[in-house]
């Protein structure tokens, strides 16, 4: 099998990001030297982004199965059964490099891409969340990036009818030149009507639907996503795609309408590497072949070359394998929604990916090596030489702050802790009429219409912990996500992960990656939650400086009864405040140390997965018994910040609390330390004894610490601040930083 185009040289292969060994491997696999079109196709299919060549071997150990799992990793998104014949379909995905190069379009198309991954499986998207990491506000580019990314997420998300209901956002100088934008979508599908991306039926038509193909995003996957940044980064702007949310909205409706019929055999989003990866992956999953006629592809410009058409990452396009004979009904649905839909090829049985243009074959490659032939690297791993030094922290050297109240006010105003209202007020969090708890509590809660159920979703990662100990840090991301959905009244049922790391060719990065994946696996196994989807983003480096390891965890929980939904803020005077869990003298990796001492040192808080499980189970049981008025996970800023947030983060006037408990360890660690496995509850007095019983039975420390009362937060003899001052410090700090 060959084409009429001339073979390429090894130098051209290196320009495409392949190594010399990879190029030889590909030539051997196809039995000849590829032409330029074929090389372009190989370079994206074998890129880190598409092939997972550095991570595949490590990821094998993750728990991906369970009684609810309808679809694990390997498809467009994961799916879990939630009863009533329904499933939730969800995934989180990175769009880091595009968002740094062009923040508005990078973030917007990140949202668009993850939406398509979900609705392509016949799930109606019900919510978007996102996890964002920016550099320090001292860096000149940070405000531009924040405002571009936030308006991109809003500009796209607000136009497609899917609410953006939550997320997280952190600021750290370590992300100054490599921000992270991780986008998550969850949808609801009928469990027996989930569509997959595996071609079947020789002779079935291959149908292109959606936007026309243009020159944007060429080599996004290979050159932008799979390489470090350096001083040529600005030149990579043309590799960023441009989004059109209006077309996406039409595409959502048209695809979901089409999938109600019996016309679709397989369907896949044209995401990274566009037409190439969607056609290759669908045919390879089905063990079949495919032909494509590029002359029939809808184009923005007639002069697009075969190379450009195949590698374009133009947005809002899908590829469908339809049942033979159903062509007209497919085309009719898309005509109704004023979208292009064209039969561009057929499913074959010869195992080849055959592409023609102008009546000539321009690519003719065996599918197996193209889809699965990339090398799997077992890259060397070694801990960073600086690790021991970073983990050293002598608390004896650290004086206590002079004024604990001022320290609390200061912590509440740092961007990592301050209210994120400036961000989420720019997002439509209501469309869909499912939002029970929107942004601003531990997790978002969305009801499932037609049932009594709801889902809770949270995205979490503390990358400071991951830098100091990637194993413990990744475990913490999982258990904190679980704790957040538990505090909202849900049982954790599944995870999607977005693993953001530096260059895997460096042993210390590979070590961080291995340790983090081990932590994710151990925590998910202990909690009994499978990882059903996700994405790996390597090469998050600029000029050789890597980001801290950032394994973002999207945790999905299920509320059997939506009436159990619980929020983090106190509800009224007279309620008793209870702390579940134990506070240790732990300050390593804390926000307190970073803010007051400019220190990122020590080891992250100790974590015992069985204790964590017990704490979560007591909290959930108490919520389900109707004992709990508010529940709030303790995280950055520790007990004092959690108490303050419970006083001030509700929709009404701020409340106060009288906390009588006394510190039994050094006061700053007691107030601001971030010991894990702790939850702050408030409940009516009459329910305290029952809560104690539940806690005692599970051997969970349960301490009555005080009462919701008045308009001041008083914590022992350490802190006495008016709730209004707390709210003022916290509520407007982020907006003020953006306006500086």
């Amino acid at each position, binding site marked *: 099998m060959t084409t009429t185009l001339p073979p390429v040289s090894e130098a051209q292969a290196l320009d495409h990001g392949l190594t010399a060994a990879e190029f030889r491997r590909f030539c051997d696999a196809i039995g000849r030297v590829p032409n330029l079109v074929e090389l372009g196709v190989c370079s994206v299919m074998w890129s880190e982004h598409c092939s997972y060549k550095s991570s595949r071997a490590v990821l094998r150990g993750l728990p991906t199965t369970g009684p609810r799992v309808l679809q694990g990793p390997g498809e467009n998104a994961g799916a879990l059964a939630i009863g009533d014949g329904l499933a939730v379909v969800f995934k989180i995905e990175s769009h880091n490099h595009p968002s740094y190069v062009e923040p508005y379009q990078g973030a917007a198309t990140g949202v668009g891409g993850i939406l398509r991954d979900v609705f392509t499986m016949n799930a109606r998207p019900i919510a978007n969340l996102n996890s964002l990491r920016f550099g320090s506000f001292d860096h000149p580019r940070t405000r531009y990036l924040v405002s571009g990314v936030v308006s991109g997420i809003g500009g796209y998300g607000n136009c497609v009818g899917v609410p953006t209901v939550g997320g997280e956002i952190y600021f750290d100088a370590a992300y100054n030149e490599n921000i992270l934008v991780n986008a998550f979508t969850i949808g609801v599908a009928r469990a027996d009507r989930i569509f997959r991306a595996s071609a079947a039926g020789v002779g079935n038509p291959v149908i292109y639907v959606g936007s026309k193909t243009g020159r944007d995003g060429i080599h996004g996957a290979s050159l932008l996503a799979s390489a470090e940044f350096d001083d040529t980064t600005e030149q990579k702007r043309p590799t960023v795609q441009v989004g059109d949310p209006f077309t996406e909205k039409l595409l959502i409706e048209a695809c979901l309408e089409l999938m109600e019929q019996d016309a679709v055999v397989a369907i896949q989003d044209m995401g990274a590497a566009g037409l190439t990866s969607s056609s290759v992956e669908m045919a390879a999953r089905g063990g079949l072949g495919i032909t494509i006629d590029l002359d029939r592809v809808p184009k923005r410009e007639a002069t697009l070359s075969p190379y450009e058409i195949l590698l374009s990452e133009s947005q809002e396009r899908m590829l469908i394998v339809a049942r033979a004979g159903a062509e007209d009904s497919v085309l009719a649905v898309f005509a109704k929604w004023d979208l292009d839909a064209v039969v561009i090829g057929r499913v074959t049985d010869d195992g080849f990916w055959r592409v023609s243009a102008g009546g000539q074959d321009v690519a003719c490659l065996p599918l197996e090596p193209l889809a699965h032939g990339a090398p799997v690297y077992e890259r060397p791993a070694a801990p960073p030489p600086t690790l021991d030094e970073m983990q050293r922290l002598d608390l004896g050297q650290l004086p206590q702050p002079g004024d604990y109240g001022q320290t609390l006010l200061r912590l509440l105003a740092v961007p990592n802790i301050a209210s994120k209202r400036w961000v989420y007020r720019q997002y439509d969090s209501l469309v869909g009429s499912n939002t029970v708890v929107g942004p601003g509590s531990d997790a978002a809660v969305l009801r499932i219409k037609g049932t009594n159920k709801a889902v809770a979703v949270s995205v979490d990662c503390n990358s400071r912990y991951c830098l100091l100990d990637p194993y413990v840090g990744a475990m913490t991301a999982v258990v904190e996500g679980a704790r957040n959905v538990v505090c909202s009244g849900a049982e954790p049922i599944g995870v999607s992960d977005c693993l953001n790391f530096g260059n895997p060719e460096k042993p210390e990065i590979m070590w961080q990656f291995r340790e983090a994946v081990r932590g994710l696996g151990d925590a998910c196994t202990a909690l009994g939650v499978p990882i059903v989807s996700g994405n790996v983003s390597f090469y998050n480096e600029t000029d050789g400086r890597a980001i801290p390891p950032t394994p973002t965890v999207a945790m999905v929980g299920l509320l059997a009864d*939506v009436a159990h939904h619980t929020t983090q803020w106190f509800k009224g005077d007279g309620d008793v405040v209870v702390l579940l869990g134990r506070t240790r003298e732990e300050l390593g990796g804390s926000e307190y140390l970073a803010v007051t001492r400019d220190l990122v040192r020590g080891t992250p808080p100790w974590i015992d997965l069985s204790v964590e499980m017990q704490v979560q189970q007591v909290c959930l049981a108490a919520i389900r018994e109707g004992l709990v008025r508010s529940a709030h996970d303790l995280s950055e800023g520790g007990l004092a910040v959690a108490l303050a947030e419970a006083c001030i983060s509700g929709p009404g006037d701020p409340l106060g609390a009288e906390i009588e408990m006394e510190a039994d360890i050094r006061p700053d660690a007691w107030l601001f330390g971030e010991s894990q496995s702790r939850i702050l509850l408030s409940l009516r007095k009459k329910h305290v004894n029952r809560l104690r019983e539940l806690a005692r039975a599970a051997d969970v420390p349960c301490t009555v610490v005080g009462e919701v009362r008045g308009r001041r937060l008083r914590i022992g003899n350490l802190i006495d601040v008016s709730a209004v001052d707390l709210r003022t410090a916290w509520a407007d700090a982020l907006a003020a930083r953006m306006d500086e």
Partner: protein
Amino acid sequence: MRWGVITFPGSLDNADTVHALAQVLGDPTVSLWHKDRNLHGVDCVVLPGGFSYGDYLRAGALARFAPVMESVVEFARAGGLVFGICNGFQVLCESGLLPGALIRNRSLSFICASIHCRVEETDTPFTRSYGQAEVLALPVKHGEGCYVADADTLLALEDNRQVILRYVDAAGRATEAANPNGSLRNIAGIVNASRNVFGLMPHPEHACEPLCGGADGLGFFRSVRASLSDGAPTRTTSVPPGL
């Protein structure tokens, strides 16, 4: 009575409006398609929120040319009840069924928030279930919600008691701080002179259930139902189009 909710390409809150009317209120409700001139005999046409045609030009600027809008204009001129929410309000202004225009929020940012509105007039088919000066908690979510009109139009609106909703604080005061988008005179919703065409920026369809956003918005839909069950609620007048 029978409700009709239009779907333009890019409509977003159409399904939520149908949910509120059909599921929460329990009224017969049909979806109307932008390419279809037939209003299917509905008693009240709702233009829902969203970004019709992407709103890449001005919000609502293209939707006014949709085939269904010819029938809506005809229906409105004959006294039929027309109810525009957010993008629907924008479309009604662009169509000349309501005076004035909605421009970019003064902040230049999209805003999604729970706000308060005061019911200024209760003698309309859309507000008769509310008390005079009742303060409602309703959500807004828009990028172009700043109501503007020339001075004469504003005076006429006030003189004819066409300003139906105003942004206020929780205590019912129409302050600048309570105005989420810079609308002139804190205007959140108006009717035409015949009082049969209503447009508002807040989203009553997202305030119909205590579980999701409260129930302060239900009164608008209940008002319409009550008006229609009383018999002909509307008048045809000779007021020039646009006012």
